[in-house]
């Protein structure tokens, strides 16, 4: 059981800055995120794309913003629990007990949901029968590439994951790469490489085709693909891989009794607490009249939610407002050397 003052769900910019604000006022926190790294949408959706509306940063990328935020919370030694999704929530006296899908447990005074638009999950094939083959002959990510050696693999998708795996697996397997159009969104060098491999006969490329259906009993034996004119091709295959990027799912948060409106959690604007005492929501996942889905709004919401957490963590103490420029206590927490 991890005991701390506050559990932050989501390691995007709002969650990271909230950790900073908690640290400044002397509260401890830990952060859970379903991805394998901090940064949330900034890292997953647009690491290289510039952002122009972070106050005092005329331009920075999602990756730079994330790295700066991580740097800023370094003094507080915040513990991260990555690749974990929060599943269960239980009130135990005046504390919350939280469990993740990886069986990690937390005992906290309050919770800050900074979950963006939900946790990222792989986007799946639209055909129904794909489910029964999942994890046996159909995958959305690769954990052990050795199982594909000397097999026939059909890879769907046009981004970097699809291209990179097609290139790599073509060394040891027979690879079919199937994509819905002629253009690819992966980096140009990979696109060129795939075309070369195709010309050399080391990889079969099917563009303007999409999945039609999967055939097989326990394992996939054949995948049928169709083009825009409805023409169908049958491809014998032992494995099917789909790389269609990630989607965002609100998941178990929906079952916690929070007031949810259009996939967002309703909060007050005084301290961003939800309808449940001790549970706060900040960033893209919260809604209130006038809500702007901007990173800067998430920072503001995190600062106020952190102060809202104080009374649950330290019910017998009074929080005094202080500036980091002059507060001795805050500077000590930041490890500032005079």
């Amino acid at each position: 059981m991890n005991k701390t003052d506050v559990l932050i769900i989501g390691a995007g910019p709002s969650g990271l800055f909230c950790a900073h604000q908690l640290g400044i006022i002397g509260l401890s926190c830990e952060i859970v995120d379903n991805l394998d790294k901090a940064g949330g949408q900034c890292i997953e959706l647009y690491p290289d794309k510039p952002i122009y509306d972070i106050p005092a940063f005329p331009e920075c990328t999602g990756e730079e913003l994330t790295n700066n935020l991580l740097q800023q919370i370094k003094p507080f030694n915040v513990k991260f629990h990555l690749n974990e999704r929060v599943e269960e929530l239980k009130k135990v006296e005046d504390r919350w007990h939280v469990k993740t899908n990886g069986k990690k447990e937390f005992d906290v005074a309050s919770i800050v949901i900074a979950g963006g638009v939900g946790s990222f999950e792989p986007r799946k094939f639209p055909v129904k029968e794909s489910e029964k083959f999942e994890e046996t002959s159909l995958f959305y990510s690769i954990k052990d590439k050795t199982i594909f050696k000397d097999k026939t693999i059909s890879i769907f998708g046009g981004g970097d994951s699809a291209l990179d795996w097609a290139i790599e697996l073509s060394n040891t397997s027979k690879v079919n790469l199937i994509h819905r159009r002629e253009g690819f969104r992966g980096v140009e060098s990979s696109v060129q490489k795939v075309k070369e491999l195709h010309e050399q006969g080391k990889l079969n490329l099917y563009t303007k085709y999409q999945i039609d259906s999967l055939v097989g009993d326990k394992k996939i034996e054949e995948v049928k693909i169709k083009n825009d004119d409805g023409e169908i091709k049958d491809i014998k295959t032992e494995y099917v891989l789909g790389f269609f990027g990630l989607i965002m799912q609100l998941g178990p948060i929906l079952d916690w009794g929070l007031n949810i409106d259009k996939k967002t959690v309703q909060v007050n604007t005084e301290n961003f607490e939800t309808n449940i005492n001790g549970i706060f929501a900040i960033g893209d996942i919260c809604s209130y009249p006038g809500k702007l889905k901007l990173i800067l709004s998430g920072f503001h919401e995190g600062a106020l939610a952190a102060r809202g957490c104080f009374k649950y963590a330290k019910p017998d103490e009074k929080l005094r407002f202080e500036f980091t420029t002059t507060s001795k206590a805050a500077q000590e927490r930041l490890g500032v050397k005079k």
Partner: protein
Amino acid sequence: MAKIIYNTHDDKTHTIDVQKGLSVMEGAVQNDIPGIDADCGGGMACATCHVYVNEEWLDKLPAKEDGEEDMLDMAYEPKNNSRLSCQLIISDELDGLIVNIPSKQS
């Protein structure tokens, strides 16, 4: 205002007057038309405001940016007439536009 006709997957037709300057996505979300998720809020960073545009309207729409085509790769069952509704900005030219909302967004 321009009339936008949204056909939802349950075979219902919603005809909505949408203010010029808003997107077809915003017109749907603000009027509670089901089937448009718009997770990213109109940033061309997801594909959950995907619609099928009626064929006769395809040529009249502004061309897709590269980013939109990239995102459509991730849409649920994309077709030739697929667009992201957040990229369709309402103008007089779009008065009467007919879009069909897919059975699901992801």
